[in-house]
């Protein structure tokens, strides 16, 4: 994970946010540090209550941290009120001003900055073009659809050309098809405008498809930061492996460690080489994760790392899931695309072997 060229747009250093006092104090953020580069599509991903929205609010200025600093291009903005920060937010509920038209909403930020009327009008029509809503300029915001409101909220936040755009689960209220469309749209906008996007979501699929980098959070802490591929293929913590996609967890004992990989003897049988998260030098018992698509079924008599019985076959349209109960008692899922013709020749109830793809396993911290 090398920091590419480009400045650090937003940096949080040791940020802690606590609600309540004494016994009942709840740490929404616990000593969180993260660096977000400019022109990056950065996602904060985690279940509800993990602190991602709190962190966003601290960056926007709606709340103040108890400890730590929040730097915008090196300057500490933590004591500044929101209207003094060149950072704009797209709210989950859109928060469009109901008593103003679409055009007035979009121009609001520029009005507050005291820009001349001509400049505001020009910028507003630019924004309307950008989100493709020119004909709706003079409609009341209560008269347009949810998807359209979303785009107005976006245009309104982009109009003042902020250094950083914060998006608080903006797509959660949209239905599936619209959400997919908007995901592509947002990615396009980020590329075109070059503004740093900080995106908050609990939808891991969304995070994987849109982000340059993801920070996975849980209970006020950041567990892992990396590109979507890194997070998916090389989760460093059990929680991350579990939260993103489907995973198989296997127990094993470390036999040897060389650099970034370890030789692990699986409890169920075979010996494999697994990747290591940065900084971890394990010994003894470890947990290893393998993604379902990186394993294959093996007929009895063949070579496999694990053995068990095929319990269930579930057809999913694009692929098929095979549920294996390993001899040790654990469950193992194998995923195969349905492009290889009918079935794999295995029947429910038969003994099967599981072969793990080379270099696909990863040791995780617990």
């Amino acid at each position: 994970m090398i920091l590419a060229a480009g400045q650090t747009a937003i940096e949080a250093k040791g940020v802690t946010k606590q609600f309540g006092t004494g016994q009942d104090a709840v740490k929404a953020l616990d000593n969180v540090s993260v660096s977000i580069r400019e022109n990056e599509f950065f996602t904060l991903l985690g279940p509800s209550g993990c602190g991602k929205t709190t962190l966003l609010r601290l960056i926007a200025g709606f709340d103040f941290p108890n400890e730590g600093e929040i730097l915008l291009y090196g300057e500490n903005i933590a004591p500044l009120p929101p209207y003094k920060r060149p950072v704009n937010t797209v709210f989950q509920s859109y928060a469009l001003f109901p008593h103003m038209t679409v055009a007035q909403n979009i121009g609001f930020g520029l009005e507050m900055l005291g820009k001349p009327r001509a400049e505001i009008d020009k910028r507003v029509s630019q924004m309307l073009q950008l989100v493709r809503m020119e004909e709706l300029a003079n409609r009341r915001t209560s008269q347009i659809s949810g998807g359209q409101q979303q785009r107005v909220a976006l245009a309104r936040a982009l109009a003042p050309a902020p250094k950083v755009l914060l998006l608080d689960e903006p797509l959660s209220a949209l239905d599936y098809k619209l959400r997919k469309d908007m995901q592509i749209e947002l990615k396009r906008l980020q590329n075109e405008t070059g503004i740093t996007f900080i995106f908050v979501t609990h939808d891991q699929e969304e995070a994987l498809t849109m982000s340059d980098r993801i920070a996975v959070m849980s209970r006020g802490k950041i567990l892992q930061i990396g590109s979507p591929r890194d997070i998916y293929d090389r989760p460093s913590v059990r929680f991350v492996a579990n939260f993103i996609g489907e995973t198989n967890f296997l127990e094993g004992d470390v036999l040897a460690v060389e650099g970034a990989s370890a030789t692990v003897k699986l409890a169920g049988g075979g010996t494999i080489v697994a990747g290591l998260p940065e900084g971890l030098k394990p010994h003894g018992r470890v947990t290893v994760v393998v993604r379902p698509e990186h394993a294959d079924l093996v007929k009895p008599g063949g070579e496999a790392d694990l053995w068990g019985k095929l319990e269930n076959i579930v057809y999913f349209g694009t692929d098929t899931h095979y549920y294996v109960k390993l001899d040790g008692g654990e469950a193992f899922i194998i995923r195969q695309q349905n492009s290889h013709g009918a079935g794999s020749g295995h029947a429910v109830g038969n003994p099967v072997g599981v072969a793990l793809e080379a270099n696909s396993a990863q040791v995780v911290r617990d």
Partner: protein
Amino acid sequence: MGVAQQAADRAERDQIRKRWLLSSPALIIIFFAAIGPLAVVVLYSFMVKGDYGDVKYWQFSLDGWFNVVAERDMFDDTLGLAWANISIFWRSLKLSFITTIITLFFGFPTAYFIATRKPDKRDLWLFLITIPFWTNILIRTFAMQEVIRNEGIINSALMGLGLVDQPVQIMFTDWAILFGMVYVYLPLMVLPLYASLEKLDFRLVEAGYDLYANRFQVLWRVIIPLVKPGIVAGCILVFIPSLGAYVIPRVLGGGKNMMLGNLIDLQFGQGRNWPLGSALSITLMIIVTLALLVYVRNTAKGGGNGHV
């Protein structure tokens, strides 16, 4: 303490200060022109009455309180109960209580009726019940006077139908006050009852019927317990003003059927006994506060679950 924590604290202190600043004008006005003076009343109740009204500064006495229920005979200095005052207390409590019961009895079906209209019609009925509520009490009292006078509607009807030979004297009796109070305070009972009934989850009523209850049982065992907060609120909202009624007994009761409000008025007018008037006012306040405490205890106890 870190810089961050200081900033957070400062922001919170600013918030608190801003809130006090914003609410202070309202609080100040109410303090000086509503609540503060009440303290002065308490003070006056313990002072010596002046010769032409007001009080003698700074002479204190318990006579004000004493005269609430007792009196000293002018001639032979014996102590006796102030029967006139006591009968006025009794009349006030009696009439207020009866008014509350009657308005509850008639107000409940009315509120129920409005709450069970179709939603678009409901506004119309609400509007119709709100108009009397905002009509000047004098107009309503005067209107009631027109109804119960000897030449009024009731007597004209009675005589016209040949049921009586002479007009029935209703004005200047306790009945007149009762009619007036029920008439004036009925909307005050209906509105909180409506507020409660509107939130009633009728699926619970359905469940009652499903479980073999008849209409009366559903009313008594399901509906009424669920709207208890509204009932209590309505009763309080009627009882308190009735107890302190002034206009209605003055206009409809004449000079003889005084209620507590008129008795207090007397002390500040011809009676020239400001300490007594103050003591009577505080007594009224105490009774009202007790009634309010009953209300607070009732709503705090979580009566009325089953609201949607």
